[in-house]
Structure formats: structure tokens, C-alpha cells
């Protein structure tokens, strides 16, 4: 018999580009990302080296292939967490990169409530046409061809019932900045 729903925590990150564009995940982020805090990890790609480490963080790890991952992981993934269908793609396949209409097309194609993509190295939490589009940015602050000044970031989703609370973590200088927002189905 189903018990009370206590909710789930989902870590969203990607585009680490280790070792080619960055050496390591920032030390303050590493201290925060410890096992037994979250139920799921969603990774947008280009973070192959991190895969084994991510598996120690949570029982469920969902990784997709970035353009530099040589197809080691699937192109896209759909995951059901609580009441939300969540789609994940790296985003280099979606042109123009970061364009809301193009993202919307893939959200409809995957038939998901939330579409998570990366590639732009720019963190976002946007609503468009009643659906939500999330980009965790680059967890290492690796440079991208789109812009050079990249703030290291990742996102934590707190999902319970029909509500999602998003925490965006950014490393500004040496300080971890957290900004919180929420949305509902």
C-alpha cells in the first residue's frame, strides 16, 4: 500500500568537460555533493568522467550523450519523478541552440512536462507555453563556444506532488549563491 509521499530531490548538472576544458568540479560544490541527500541525478552530457562518481551520489543516475561523448549514452531520456515527466537531452541537437521555440518542439516530441538541456553553459529556469525548460549550465564553468565568461552552476529540484521548487547554485567568485523559485503543474 502506498505510503505518504515525502518528495524527491533531483540533482541536475552537466557540461563538466573534464579534463579537456576544466580540471575539476569547484571544491565548494564538491563538498555539497555528498551521498544520501538526493534520489536522482540528471546529467545533460559532456561529463563522461564524472559518471562513476555520480553513481555514488544517488540510486538513480540518468545521463545523456553530449557532442563530445562519442555516443556512450543515449541521445535522450525520459524519466518519471513524482507527478512530472522529465525529458533530458544535451541540446547540441537543438538548433538554434537555446531557442525556446526549438526547445518547445523537442518538449512536445518527448511529451514531457519539464525539458532539461545543457550545451549553452548558461543556467536557466524558464516557463514557456505551460511547460518548463531547465538548463543547469556547466558545473565547472568550462568555456563554451557561445560565451567565454561562464559561471560554474548546477540545479537542485525538490519535487513533491504537483510542485517543484528549484534551487540554482552558482559559484560567484568564492561564494556559493543560491536562488530559489518554484512552479506547479
Amino acid at each position, binding site marked *: *500500500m*502506498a*505510503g*505518504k*509521499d*515525502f*518528495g*524527491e*530531490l533531483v540533482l541536475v548538472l552537466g557540461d563538466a568537460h573534464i579534463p579537456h576544458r576544466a580540471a575539476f568540479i569547484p571544491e*565548494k560544490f564538491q*563538498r*555539497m*555533493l*555528498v551521498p*544520501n*541527500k*538526493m534520489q536522482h541525478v540528471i546529467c545533460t552530457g559532456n561529463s563522461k568522467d564524472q559518471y562513476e562518481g555520480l553513481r555514488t551520489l544517488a540510486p538513480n543516475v540518468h545521463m545523456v550523450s553530449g557532442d563530445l561523448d562519442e555516443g556512450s549514452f543515449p541521445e535522450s531520456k525520459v524519466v518519471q519523478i513524482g507527478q512530472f515527466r522529465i525529458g533530458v537531452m544535451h541540446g547540441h541537437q537543438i538548433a538554434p541552440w537555446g531557442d525556446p521555440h526549438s526547445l518547445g518542439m523537442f518538449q512536445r516530441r518527448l511529451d514531457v512536462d519539464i525539458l532539461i538541456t545543457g550545451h549553452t553553459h548558461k543556467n536557466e529556469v524558464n516557463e514557456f507555453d505551460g511547460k518548463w525548460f531547465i538548463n543547469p549550465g556547466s558545473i565547472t564553468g568550462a568555456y563554451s563556444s557561445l560565451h567565454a565568461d561562464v559561471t560554474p552552476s548546477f540545479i*537542485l529540484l*525538490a*519535487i*513533491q*506532488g504537483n*510542485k517543484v*521548487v528549484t*534551487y540554482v*547554485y552558482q559559484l560567484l567568485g568564492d561564494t*556559493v549563491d*543560491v536562488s*530559489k523559485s*518554484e512552479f506547479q503543474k
Partner: protein
Amino acid sequence: MLDLKKVCERALQEGVGPGERAWAWRLLLGVIPASGEAGAVEASLKASRLRYEKLRREHLPDISSSCEEAGDPLTMALGAESGWSRFYASADLRAEIQKDLDRLVISGLPEDHFSRSSFWASMLTVLTVWSTAHPDIGYRQGMHEILALVVLALEDEIAYGCGPAEGDDEADCFSLFEAIMVRHADHFHAGPEAPVVAACRTAQAELLELYEPRLARRLNDYVEPQIYGLRWARLLFSREFEAPASLTLCDALFAAAVGDGDPLAFRRTLQIFFVALLLVCAPRLMAATDEMECLSVLMRPQQCSVLDVVSLARRLIEAQSQTRLANDTIVASVDDRGLPHFTTPLFGGEGGGNADDDSANGSPRAPAVISANDDDDDDDDEALANGLDSALGVLSKYANTPEAVAALDKIKFVADRLRVASV
């Protein structure tokens, strides 16, 4: 409506039936008032449900409620204060309790009885809320087995359609569990000085001695009481009998413990049932030749009838009922040598009383079941000396100051004098 006195009488005779058990327990444990007026009962049930709702909100943090407090789930690792540590502690606690629940098997019931029960999810919640609300003791393994007894009583009530008009299964489960734990939680403390350990020792070494000195001597020679006794006491003897017999024993236990407001009434009742069970095991224990055989009698489920234990306990209580209670020991009246006498015969009142029978009302000391004709002064003194020796044996393990050692020497002196006097 239920009458407290009648329920107690039935509980101490043949037990309460499955359809009425939950109501009987509510009455015996004070969850509903003994006045029995319909209005008062409804009101108290409603009040306890509201209380539980409040406790649940307070002690069962989830992600939603935790998000509402300031702070994010992760920066506590960097030293920030956060309401999230409460959430994580609660999640860890739930995982620990669930592990015990997953392994819960009660003898006499199918293995999946609880996982298929309508109470399954509630069991986790009730234990989590109670433990979080009682941080001084928290959750200990074994509490889930006490909760299982409550669940069985409530399942029967539902099956018989006897439940309260407006049911709230989880709240009712909580209020019965809480009422038991108010009296029993202390017994889950651990350690050599814990109350439950002392209670077992008193039961085996002192109380049993009053009724069955030879059995007591044998047990005190062979067995440390907490080895079998912790399980007996903590689990209310529920592992010693199959369900539903274990529930019948609880009927009697709760009835016998209906208090005069004395916080130790429950512990004393536990000790009486402890001794009653030892007495029922007596023939097999006297036939055992070493520690292993004694323990195999004491640590395996009992083949005897629960009603034998209940009736013995009832007679022990009746013998006590004309007594002065002093320092948790059962002292009927005390003659001028300090030896206890019982004012009513326990086991049929045959002869074999003390030669020096100075009890206040002149009735002979009741003979014990086994040593029917052995009761005379010499055995009394020797029994007392042996009792002192065994207590000394235990205490000397803890005597690590010169004053303590000196005090123990003094006691030993008394024991030796008693033994000399008995020769």
C-alpha cells in the same frame, strides 16, 4: 458501554475477545475515560485524533515543508544552519524503522501479514512520529513489535466491525501505542544500569526467591536474568507465545497494571508476570543440568498455555493485595526476624510452614510448588545467604572504589553469618 472493573476481571480470567480487545485496551490504558459515558468517549477519541494530526505535522518533515523554511538542501555541508538537517535525520530514521518493519514476522501469522495489512504504511509513520516526538529515547528495535500487537488488536476490531463510529486507523494506532509506551518506554534504555535490567534481576533474584527459593537458587547459579529477560520484558512476552495467545497475555498485563497513578505499577506488573512465567517453567528448569539447558527453556517460545501464566500471575497479585509494598519487593508481612510471610496460601496451603511462625495474623507460610516440605529455618537462612551471594557476585563487577569494596565486604559478612546460623 465498557465497564473497567468487568474488563479487568475478564482480562485476568480468560482474556478479552478479539472483537472487543481494542476497546478493552483503550479503557485499560486510559486512552478513553473509565466513566464510560458515550459522550466522554467520543470526545476523548476526537481530542486524541486532533493531537495526533498536530504531532504528525510537527514531526514528519517532508520536502514541501522543508522547502518552506529558509535554506537550501545542500549548503549545510558548508556549515550553514538549515531546517534540512531535520528532514535528512527524519529520512534516515524512516529508513531504519522500515528495515525493522520489513523483517517483522510474528509467530502464528503468515510472514507477509503486516506488509499486506491496511496498517502497513501507518506503522512506519506512527513509529517515526512517536520516536521523533520522544528524542530522549528515540526509536529502538523492538518498539515495532509492540506496535505490531496494537495493529493486531485494531485489525481484529475492524474485522469484527466493532470500531469507533468515525474511524481514523492511524490516529487510533498511535494513541494505543503511545499509551503503552508512556508506561513502557523506559524499558528500552540499554546498559548495565538500565531500569529493565534491574527489573529482570529483581524478578529472578528476589521476587522468585520469595515463592520458589530452590528455583531461584538454581537460576541465579546458572543464568544472568537479562539474557532471556530483556526480550521477555521489552516485548511484553510476545515472542514467548504465538499470536493470538500473546494478545491474551497483554489483556491480563494491562488489566493488572491499571494504576493507582503509581508510575511504577507497570514495571511491578511486568515483574509479576515475569515470575509467573518462571514458575510455569519451573519443572523444566529444575530438570535442566546446566546453563545451556536452562536458557533453551527460557529463550524458546513456550509450549505452555498463556492462561496458566495469567492465572498464576493473578494469584501472585492476590497474595500481594493485602501487603505493604516496600522498595519494589513483595513483602506480605514481615516477622521479627525480617522474613516475609504470605497472608494467603499460594498453591493450596498445605503444611510445611516455618517452625518460628511469627507472622502478624498467624497463617503459615505458603509452601512453594517444588520444595513443598523443605521450608524450614535453615533453608530460609541458607536461601537468604545464597541470594546475598549472588547479588554480591553481580555487584562486585561494578565495585571499583574502596568504599564500594568495603560495603560489599560488609554484606558478605552478613551472608556468612546467616550461613553459619543455618548450620
